[in-house]
């Protein structure tokens, strides 16, 4: 961290907001502004984008002058396992089905905690998958494929539908 950045939290927040606002203003160029009386689709977003740019610049400015502070580390392991697990659920739920998708998601995300062990995490996944099928598919009748299209007719043969 370069030493002229006195408050990295403020600095990176400002930088992030600056990227968001400038990107937003860039996209909004294509929308017509209209007039103050008859506002076009671009009017409101452009005004917001300009305010956000101002806020971002103030934040960056303050980060260079204000109180010193430190940035805590990012928790990469839980971050990747939790988000990756949920992402895999979305990818798997249609082709492979809800049951395997939940087992995979729970197994991966449970390992994000230091207290988890692989075998209990797997068992937790199986338990939650069974519970979800009973609660959501059988109980609430939600139209979610228990086993996905990869398993062809198996879903119907086993009467796993709602």
């Amino acid at each position, binding site marked *: 961290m370069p030493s002229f950045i006195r408050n990295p939290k403020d600095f990176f*927040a400002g930088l992030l907001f600056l990227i968001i606002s400038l990107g937003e203003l860039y996209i909004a160029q294509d929308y017509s502004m209209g007039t*103050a009386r008859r*506002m076009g689709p671009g009017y409101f977003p452009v005004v917001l984008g300009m305010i956000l740019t101002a806020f971002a610049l103030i*934040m960056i400015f303050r980060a260079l002058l204000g109180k010193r502070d430190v940035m805590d580390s990012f928790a990469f392991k839980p971050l990747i396992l939790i988000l990756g697990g949920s992402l895999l659920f979305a990818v798997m739920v249609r082709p492979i089905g809800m049951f395997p998708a939940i087992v995979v998601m729970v197994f991966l995300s449970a390992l994000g905690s230091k207290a988890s062990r692989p075998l209990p995490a797997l068992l937790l996944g199986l338990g*939650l998958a069974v519970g979800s099928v009973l609660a959501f598919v059988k109980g609430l009748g939600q139209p979610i494929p228990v086993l996905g299209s990869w398993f062809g007719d198996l879903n119907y043969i086993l009467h796993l539908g709602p």
Partner: protein
Amino acid sequence: MDLFHNLAIGLGAAITPINLVYCFIGCVLGTLIGVLPGIGPAATIAMLLPITFTLKADAALIMLAGIYYGAQYGGSTTAILVNLPGEASSVVTTLDGYQMARQGRAGVALATSAIGSFFAGTVATLILAMFAPPLAAIALKFGPAEYFALMVLGLVASVVLAQGSLIKALAMIIFGLLIGIIGADVNSGLPRFTFGLPELSDRLELVAVAMGMFGLGEIITNLQHQETRGSVIGKVTGLMPGLRDLKDMSWPIVRGTIVGSILGILPGGGAMLGSFASYSIEKKMAKDPSRFGRGAIEGVAGPESANNAAAQTSFIPMLTLGIPSNVIMALMAGAMIIQGVQPGPAVMREQPELFWGLIVSMWVGNLMLVILNLPLIGIWVRLCTVPYHHLYPAIMVFCAIGVFTLNNSTFDVYIMVLFGLVGYVFTKLECEPAPMLLGMVLGPQMEEYLRRAMLLSRGDPLVFVQRPISAGLLVVTVLAMVAVAMPTIRAKRDEALKE
């Protein structure tokens, strides 16, 4: 009397068997998630929104409301017995509640909290019933300029009362407003900020964003600060408070109820703020402030009454003006819209059964919670001890399935994952996610009111200061911002929130 007539309508609607059942489910669920640390009412209400599709409007709202005030009851149980706040609003209860428990007075502490909460809930229900009709009558006279000014005030006030940097919270609001207007423009039909994705033309799904930020984002944050638990007070004996205890708790309960009711109505207020304010008031009023933090019964009675009162009165702006004052109310407004009810002053007139039924159900629910909570303490204690690494995967399953079934689309799950990342990164940078969500809900309406006000004034922006109500609201907004920006008041605010 109109009041009694209205309450009678409400009672009739609230005690139909089906609504009683959903009120009960809401209260039990609320207590459950209140007891469990690491999952709050915002995430729970977001998780259950998809399920409420299948319910009738009144049953759905009664259940969701039960979750919010039920969580206030449950949160105190964990605070007293485990020294962990089950909810953010019971943080201060840990200070004296756990000390009481260690001195063998766990039962008295729990009873104090239940009595205080019930008293506060009853008073808040009456306040809600008394203040809602006049406010709604005023709101019916509002034009677009007034609504726009009211939203500006609501958004700004919601961050003035919160902790942390003002400018970051304001930036989060603007970011939220921008996220909110993603999708087809109402006037021209032009798709805005959709990146060519057809799924985005119908606006971002509020539930997916909320679950990402409050569900996944918080799980990751919690895992980084792996839980350290105090020793659980397993045995609870002697629920009955003595005469002396009753005397000591009565005034704090009354004061807590008043403070909580007022702070709950304010934009940005809500359960947490009420409990903090009440604790510092009780400490200031006490003859011997040094008892606080060592098991003072006033330190449990006041805040526990305040958080429950505030949880209920925070419904007032949403139900009468249509403007949610905190994230939970934003989700409640979302639930009403799902049911085809536009939150606002018209609800009371057009659907009195729904409106009054919801209000009276809060009192019925409070009664259930008192009866339910004390005998079931044993079960709640055992639940407190469920380790977090078994709990959060279950929360994730709920989030994933809930979001997927919303529109039967995997796209919404991707949105949830994306906002899980956004929520975590912003939390790391000390930017609170709540103002963003509020902005997201109000974004489309705000643009619409701005457009209409400017059209009516023929493009003259002075309309916002020429109309008295709108001008008044904007003056209050500016005063609130100036007040927070002033260093002395700022220091006091941070001190008060830290205590």
